[in-house]
């Protein structure tokens, strides 16, 4: 006990939003201390039997995506909200935990709360738990993402009123109705920012006969992507490899084209929200209709996605303040609660 406390002095308790696209770390009392892409570059050492080592993690590794030589592979160890590559995830977490403790001489051993998609299986949860433990966490707690998102957005989750939250992440979109500290209904669809990028890549290949990379697609999405037809049409110039000629070519995309390309993944999200409204008990449904749906996650930054959902559902749709960090902040607040209540009282935490 004493030993753990001593180590606790030297390490911050962390809430980690281990996302498909970005990993956010919220340190207790400090706010969001890390926001980096969930990308790891692995270097295969030369020579026969050469081992593997981590070349870069985070922002640096993301720049390498699709631009690596033969002996380096830049990979995204998370896929659809869950771990796709166990050891790489562990390395990445280890790196991030060290990074937020970089002034410390003693090896950090924090308590960690990790957010998991509500649709993840026991196996996937176990993998995340073990991965965090392997990265040096002395205790690992799991919380379901919609719950963390709702707390982080500041929704009154403790009230006996239904609050609907839609968290559009990189790999998954989670929609949940929360009341009295519990999840009444939750659904997770494997549609998120990544699917938007893929949709743009496919659209460009089909209509322009040109191949663009994931990074380019993401830039396009952020610059001119929108979910609802607007008044102004934006344009962006992109470069890709022309499939017919095999030569890089430059061309211009406009926001209407991107809107068109995003229809399919967007309809997946709209469908999930509609299904959630259908499945919600009527009393809670009435609360949601009265107050509105709250959007969190990086996907909420897609222009006019709230208007799309408003039009489709006929309900008020609100974007939470600072939607990207809602989940991490909510997890952090849950972690604080964990301490205040003596480590016993916490809802929906494993």
């Amino acid at each position, binding site marked *: *006990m004493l030993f*753990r406390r001593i180590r606790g002095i030297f390490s911050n308790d962390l809430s980690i939003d281990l996302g498909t696209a970005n990993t956010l770390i919220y340190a207790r009392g400090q706010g969001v201390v890390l926001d980096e892409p969930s990308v790891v570059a692995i270097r295969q050492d030369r020579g026969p039997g050469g081992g593997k080592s981590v070349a870069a993690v985070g922002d640096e590794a993301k720049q390498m995506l699709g631009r690596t030589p033969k002996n380096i592979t830049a990979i995204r160890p998370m896929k659809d909200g869950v771990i796709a590559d166990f050891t790489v995830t562990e390395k990445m977490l280890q790196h991030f935990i060290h990074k937020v403790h970089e002034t410390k001489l003693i090896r950090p051993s924090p308590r960690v709360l990790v957010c998991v998609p509500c649709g993840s299986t026991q196996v996937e949860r176990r993998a995340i738990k073990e991965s965090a433990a392997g990265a040096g966490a002395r*205790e690992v707690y799991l919380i379901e993402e919609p719950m963390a998102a709702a*707390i982080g*957005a*500041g*929704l*009154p*989750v*403790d*009230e006996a009123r239904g609050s609907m939250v839609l968290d559009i992440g990189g790999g998954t979109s989670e929609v949940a109705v929360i009341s*009295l*500290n*519990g999840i009444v209904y939750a659904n997770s669809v494997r549609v998120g920012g990544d699917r938007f990028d893929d949709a743009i890549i496919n659209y460009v290949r089909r209509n322009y006969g040109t191949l663009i990379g994931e990074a380019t697609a993401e830039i396009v999405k952020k610059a001119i992507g929108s979910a609802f037809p607007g008044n102004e049409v934006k344009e962006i110039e992109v470069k890709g490899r022309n499939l017919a000629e095999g030569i890089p070519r430059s061309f211009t995309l406009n926001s209407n084209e991107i809107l068109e390309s995003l229809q399919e993944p967007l309809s997946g999200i709209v469908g999930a929200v509609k299904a959630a409204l259908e499945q919600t008990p009527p009393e809670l449904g009435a609360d949601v209709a*009265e*107050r*509105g749906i*709250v959007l969190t996650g990086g996907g909420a930054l897609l222009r006019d996605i*709230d208007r799309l959902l*408003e039009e489709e559902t*006929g*309900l*008020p*749709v*609100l*974007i*939470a*303040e600072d939607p990207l960090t809602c989940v991490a902040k909510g997890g952090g*607040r*849950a972690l604080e*609660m964990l301490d205040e*209540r003596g*480590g*016993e*009282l*916490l*809802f*929906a*935490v*494993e």
Partner: protein
Amino acid sequence: MNAGSAEDNIEQDVLDGPGKKLKALRVAKNLDLGRVASLLHLSEEKLRSLEAEDYQALPGPVFIQGYIRNYARLLGVSPEPLLSAFRSQNPEKDRHPELRISQVQHEVQSSHLLMRLMTWVIVIGLVVLVVIWWKGYLKWPLMMNSTPNQENSQNISEEEDDGGPGFASLPSFFDGPDDETDSTTGGNLSLPSLEQMDEQETPSGINEKEVPAIDEAPPPSETEVSPPSQPVADEPLPDTPTTVTETPPAATETARVVVLFKGKSWTRISDASGRFKIQEEISAGSRRALQGDAPYELVLGNASVVEITIDGEVFDLTPHIRGNVARFTLDPDRISR
């Protein structure tokens, strides 16, 4: 009025609340409240409360900020000044939701109080066991030697016919007046008694030699056991109960009833006081001398192979045998009379 001048207006009257500004903008745009409400998917009532800045009638700050943002966007102005005005008006009380358990799936960690307590209990238990073992380390081999007798000494005295009379009959003859550990009491065996047993018991080889020589010379083991006042063992045996330990005839002296098993038999015998009890399967060739107070309750399985002698005389079992099992009460006094 274009959007730019509207924003200028907002900045000018910072002291005005966001609701009033939104209302002014709406009126300036000549928009009817009902139309705005339908565009925002909000009820007119809510919108009126928002414009009147009656925040009690609206859900929470999250929702209010969302409504302001949507309203501002509808009117084509930047929501930020309005939001900051709202925040300055309503400094966000650090409202933490009352989080309570809805489902606790807390894994019991090694740091858990219960786990730590249990660990300590186990550790202390182990230490105590080790100490006990260490203290009794030298005694154990001796106790191991005497275990058959020790077990029986709680209830009975067992005499193995092939084991030599002096060896097997020991515990039953601890009833001597100077022997503090009465073997028939069935109480805890204290270490001294074990030592005494050992003194008497271990030289069983010697006993075998000495039993025939009992009339010739006092054996050394007897002098140890018997009181100093009786150095010689060639006096009549009934007078010296402690020396009796060495000789089988003495068995019949203290225990009047002796049960001899010629074959294997399941036996249950209890005396009147309840202190003496046998309940076990006894192998062929064994002998049991009954202790305790008469009368005895006997149940003898395979009764045809059991022979009972009272004061050396054979007791006839046949009247009590039903289907080769004898159940009866035996009172030696009544029979001898």
